[in-house]
């Protein structure tokens, strides 16, 4: 087996697993030696393309657990503690505390021990020793940044809450002592964390956006054959009317008479009022029956005319239309009669015909051998189709042969 074939199989094997018809066709043609792998998959490249689009572009959001739950590794022998920082954790810290983010951007190219200071600040804060914190803050300006309360967050919170503080920050700032700004509540941390997690990443998911188009009916280009089917029924109806001799009755009424008729009927209604029984029960049931009959009969007629005209128009089509018609044909009826085998035949026939017509005009010996192989396969299926015709009950044989005949026709022509 050459290298390329192995790749193709691997590439397409998930589809072989999920689509059993595809697997059956694959087995029939490729292992039967009629088509090669490359030819078989050449027409199905769009399966792959569809898959690439499906790879999701979603990013995972933040975890709900707070980062402070992550415990550092403490080395018992020395006084060192080691924090394990992953990029995700760093990202979350930056989102929750924009001050830290800004400090990072400002200081990091110069100093490397950013994180050491950050965790030092965290430690100081956790000891709730405001005085010590103040002392250290005056020594080291970066620590001061970490230790101070986040003013931007506070003002934003105040703005959102219309002055009602939820972070337990005292509104009145002048009574704050020097050390108050180094205190920070667990509540504030929790709230900030919750806000960040809920907001998530600001991803615009296209599917969830509301459609922007105004409610306009979409362009609907219908199959032009529908028009001719409908006209057939029309023509039949007018023929029927002429045949039964139903002629429209001509009344000669002037407009003045028409007006007076209506005025009279209006005054009648006014005087009599609305009757209690608007419709008699006998008439109502007759109406209902006729409506039901009408609905079921038109459904039947439309269906029947649909099928016959498709068949009649088949022999005069070009090869593209042939493929189109074959693909679109009414499979329900045939598959009802002779279930899986006929559907399988249909799909095999489609496959063979596709490859057959695509190899025309025959210019190379490779193509001619391919065409010969396809011809043999088609002759094979032709035999099976004859078998189907014979196996079906006699009263339905006519219908079946009508459907099968075009298939047969097109096999005989190339051969």
């Amino acid at each position, binding site marked *: 087996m050459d290298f390329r074939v192995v790749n193709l199989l691997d590439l397409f094997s998930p589809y072989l697993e999920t689509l059993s018809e595809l697997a059956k066709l694959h087995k029939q043609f490729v292992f039967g030696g009629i088509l090669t792998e490359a030819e078989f998959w050449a027409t199905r490249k769009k399966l792959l393309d569809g898959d690439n689009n499906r790879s999701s572009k979603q990013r995972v959001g933040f975890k709900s657990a707070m980062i402070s739950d992550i415990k550092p590794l403490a080395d018992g022998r020395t006084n060192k503690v080691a924090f394990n920082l992953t990029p995700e954790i760093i990202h979350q810290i930056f989102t929750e505390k924009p001050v830290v983010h800004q400090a990072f951007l400002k200081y990091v190219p110069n100093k490397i021990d950013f994180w050491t200071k950050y965790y030092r600040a965290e430690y100081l804060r956790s000891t709730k020793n405001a005085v010590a914190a103040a002392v250290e803050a005056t020594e080291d300006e970066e620590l001061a940044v970490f230790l101070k309360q986040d003013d931007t967050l506070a003002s934003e919170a105040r703005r959102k809450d219309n002055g009602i503080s939820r972070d337990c920050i005292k509104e009145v700032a002048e009574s704050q002592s020097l050390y108050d700004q180094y205190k920070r509540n667990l509540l504030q941390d929790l709230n900030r964390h919750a806000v960040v997690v809920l907001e998530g990443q600001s991803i615009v998911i296209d599917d969830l956006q509301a459609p922007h188009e105004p*409610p*306009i*009916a979409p362009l609907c280009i219908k199959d032009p054959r529908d*028009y001719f089917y*409908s*006209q*057939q*029924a*029309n*023509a*039949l*109806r007018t023929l029927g009317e002429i045949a039964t001799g139903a002629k*429209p*009755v*001509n*009344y*000669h*009424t*002037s*407009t*003045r008479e*028409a*007006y007076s*008729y*209506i*005025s009279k*009927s*209006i005054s009648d*209604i*006014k*005087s*009599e*009022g*609305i*009757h209690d029984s*608007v*419709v*008699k029960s006998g*008439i*109502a049931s*007759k*109406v*209902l029956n*006729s*409506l039901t009959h*009408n*609905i079921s009969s*038109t*459904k039947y*007629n*439309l269906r029947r005319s649909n099928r016959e005209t498709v068949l009649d128009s088949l022999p005069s089509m070009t090869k593209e239309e042939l493929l189109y018609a074959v693909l679109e044909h009414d499979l329900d009826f045939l598959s009802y009669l002779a279930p899986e085998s006929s559907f399988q035949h249909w799909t095999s026939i489609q496959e063979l015909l596709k490859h057959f017509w695509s190899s025309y005009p025959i210019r190379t010996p490779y193509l001619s051998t391919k065409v010969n192989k396809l011809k043999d396969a088609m002759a094979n299926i032709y035999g099976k189709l004859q078998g189907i015709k014979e196996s079906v009950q006699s009263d339905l044989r006519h219908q079946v042969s009508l459907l099968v005949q075009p298939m047969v026709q097109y096999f005989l022509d190339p051969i």
Partner: protein
Amino acid sequence: MGCKVLSFVKSILLLNQLNQVVIIATGYNTCSYIFDSSVSSSTSTTPTSGNAGMPAFCVELLEKLETFLIKDEKLSTSDTVDGVGSSLLSGSLSMALCYIQRVFRSGPLHPRPRILGLHGSPDGPEQYVAVMNAIFSAQRSMVPIDSCVIGAQHSAFLQQASYITGGVYLKPQQLDGLFQYLSTVFATDLHSRNFIQLPKPAGVDFRASSVFGRAQSDSSAASGQKRKNPS
């Protein structure tokens, strides 16, 4: 005939309290609004004197219809003996569509309207272009046009209208059962039409207006009526 239609209108209003019905009368020379259920004066139930058990809105409706008829008759210039001419279908379709657009743009609710054309007079070929315009604008705003033809002949305009906009076309065989036809077929709202089978004509007459002749005429009522149902 008239009381059947009135009962049908009443039953539509009873189906859902948010339903609205507007009736437009189509004459030879004019069209006008006869009834609008969203106007509060028409829903008062105090009976006026001298009317045997008729709701107030019917009385008002009939009065308006009479004044409309008188006005329309005055505007008629000639008295044709050839038969009943064609009523202004295009005019009333346009009026109905304008009303629908107004409701779309003004109200907080977004209804799903449809138009029912109760039509007796023959088609007038001179109105072909106007009617087709109205049909296409109804199609674009997704308003189905149902047709109930009570005249003697089929109406090609209304057949095309119902086909293009996705409405129902019906020519009742028995006119005394008209209420039954109306309530069975035309009372279904647009949501239910997804799963309720309604009568479909076997074929639609797509001939252009130039082929129409004036071979047929009938003696039934000269005015058609249009209706609009929001839900």
